[in-house]
C-alpha cells in the first residue's frame, strides 16, 4: 500500500497544463519538418514555416502555441496499491487545472452548460477518465483538446457488412468533408469495435501515440498506412490551402465488439497534437 497525497496530483497536473501548451514534442517537430521538405505548394510551405516558427516562440516565451488551450482531458492510470490522502482525487485534478490554466495565462474555454453557455472562468471541469491498473504508481496523461479539431470528430455505428473497405471509405469521406476546419496537417485516430462509448474513448487514447509508431495488430497497421496515404491524396494540405500533407499520422486501435456491430470513432487532432504525461 502506497500513500499519495493528492496535492502531488494537483502539482503534476498544473505543470502538465502548461508544458502541453508551450512545449512541442520532438516527434511532432520532426514530422512538420519532413512535411515542409516534401511540400510543393508555395502557400503551403509558408504555412508550415509559420507553424514551426510559432512553436519556437511559444516554447521560448511561454505563450500557448494556439490560443485555444482546450478543455483539459486527463487520463489517469491509478495503481491498485495506491491510497490517496488529503482530499478527493477528481477535486485534486480540477485544482491542478485551475492552477495550471491560471498561472499559465491559458484561455478559459469551458462553459457550464451546452445551452446556457456561461463560462466557468477557470477551465474546469476537466474531462477525467480513470483506469485502475496493477502496481503503485499514478500515471497522468494530459491532452488540452481544442474545439476546432474536436468538432470534426465523430462516432458512427457501421454494420459488419461494411468491412475493411467500408471503414476506409467512411474515414476518407469524413476527412474530406472536414477539409481545412481541424487545422491540417492533422493527426487522425480511428477506433473500431467496443461499444458506442468505448470506441470513442479508444480513439481519444490513441492520440497519445508517437508519430511514426505502428499499431501492433497487423490489420490495424495496414489500415493506418492506407488511410494516411489516401487522406494525403485528397490534397487538402496545410490549413486547407492545397498541398501534399493533410495528415501527419493515422493511429488505428480496436477492441472486441458485438457480433452485430461495427462501431467506428474518428478523433482528430490539429497540427499542434498536444499531449504530455507524468508519473507519480
Amino acid at each position, binding site marked *: 500500500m502506497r500513500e499519495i497525497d493528492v496535492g502531488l496530483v494537483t502539482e503534476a497536473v498544473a505543470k502538465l497544463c502548461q508544458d502541453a501548451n508551450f512545449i512541442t514534442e520532438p516527434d511532432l517537430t520532426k514530422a512538420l519538418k519532413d512535411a515542409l521538405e*516534401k511540400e*510543393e*505548394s*508555395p*502557400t*503551403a510551405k*509558408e*504555412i508550415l514555416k*509559420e*507553424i514551426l*516558427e*510559432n512553436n519556437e*516562440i*511559444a516554447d521560448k*516565451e511561454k*505563450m*500557448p*502555441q*494556439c*490560443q*485555444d*488551450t482546450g478543455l483539459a482531458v486527463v487520463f489517469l492510470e491509478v495503481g491498485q496499491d495506491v491510497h490517496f490522502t488529503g482530499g478527493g482525487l477528481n477535486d485534486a485534478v480540477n485544482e491542478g487545472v485551475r492552477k495550471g490554466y491560471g498561472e499559465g*495565462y*491559458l*484561455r*478559459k*474555454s469551458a462553459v457550464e452548460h451546452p445551452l446556457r*453557455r456561461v*463560462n466557468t*472562468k477557470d477551465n474546469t471541469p476537466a474531462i477525467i477518465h480513470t483506469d485502475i491498473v496493477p502496481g503503485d504508481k499514478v500515471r497522468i496523461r494530459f491532452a488540452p483538446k481544442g*474545439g*476546432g479539431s474536436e*468538432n470534426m470528430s465523430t462516432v458512427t455505428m457501421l454494420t459488419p457488412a461494411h468491412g475493411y473497405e467500408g471503414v476506409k471509405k467512411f474515414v476518407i469521406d469524413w476527412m474530406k468533408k472536414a*477539409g*481545412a*476546419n481541424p*487545422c491540417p496537417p492533422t493527426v487522425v485516430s480511428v477506433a473500431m469495435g467496443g461499444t458506442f462509448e468505448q470506441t470513442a474513448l479508444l480513439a481519444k487514447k490513441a492520440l497519445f501515440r508517437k508519430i511514426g509508431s505502428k499499431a501492433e495488430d497487423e490489420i490495424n497497421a495496414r489500415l493506418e498506412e492506407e488511410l494516411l496515404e489516401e487522406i494525403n*491524396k*485528397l*490534397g*487538402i*494540405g496545410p*490549413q*486547407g*490551402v*492545397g*498541398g*501534399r500533407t493533410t495528415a501527419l499520422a493515422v493511429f488505428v486501435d480496436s477492441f472486441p465488439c458485438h457480433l452485430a456491430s461495427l462501431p467506428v470513432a474518428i478523433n482528430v487532432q*490539429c*497540427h*499542434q497534437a498536444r499531449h504530455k504525461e507524468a508519473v507519480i
Partner: protein
Amino acid sequence: MAIVKLTTPLKTEDTEKLKIGDKVLISGEIYTARDLAHKQLLELIDAGEKAPFNIEGSVIYYVGPAPSKPGQVINSCGPTTSYRMDPYTGRMLELGAKAFIGKGNRSPEVIEDLKKYKAVYLAATGGAAALIAKAVKGNETIAFEELGAEAIRRLKVEDFPATVVNDINGNDLYQEGMQQYARGEYAK
C-alpha cells in the same frame, strides 16, 4: 502569389484587386468577434442601439485570445473556425463589413454574399497564435467585457498576415488548392 499591404478601413477599391492565394499584410484597426459577440452585437443593433465600433469598412477577426500576461499587449491570438459565424455574416456584410479573418471554409451562401457586397474572406494560420500575436501592437476591449475571451476588442495591428481564401468573384482557395494537389502520386 502576390503580397498586398492593406490599411483599414477597407473600401471596394481595396478588396476588388485581391485574388485567392494572395498574402495580405493588414495594418490599422481590426475588431474581434466570434459566436456570442456576433449574437449580442446584432441583438443590440436590432434593439436600436449604436454599435460599439464603425462597422462600415471594418475587418472582423474571429478570435478568442488567451489572457494577457502582465506587460503583454496580447497573448496568443490565432483564428477560430469561421463556419460557426456563417449565420451572422450576411447581416455583418449588410452593415458594411469589408473583410473577415478566420480559418476553414465558409458556406456557399456566405461566398455569394461576399460577391454581392464586394468583401473578402481571409485566413490566418490556425495554431500560429504566438506568431500572430507579434503583429498586434494595441489591444482594447470595447464591448461585452463579461464575455472574457469572447469580448469585442479593437486591435491595432501592423502587417497582420493572412491569405485570401474567398475573393469578390466567388473563387475559393480551399477548392482550387485541393484540386491542384489531389492526385495519385507525389511529384518527388
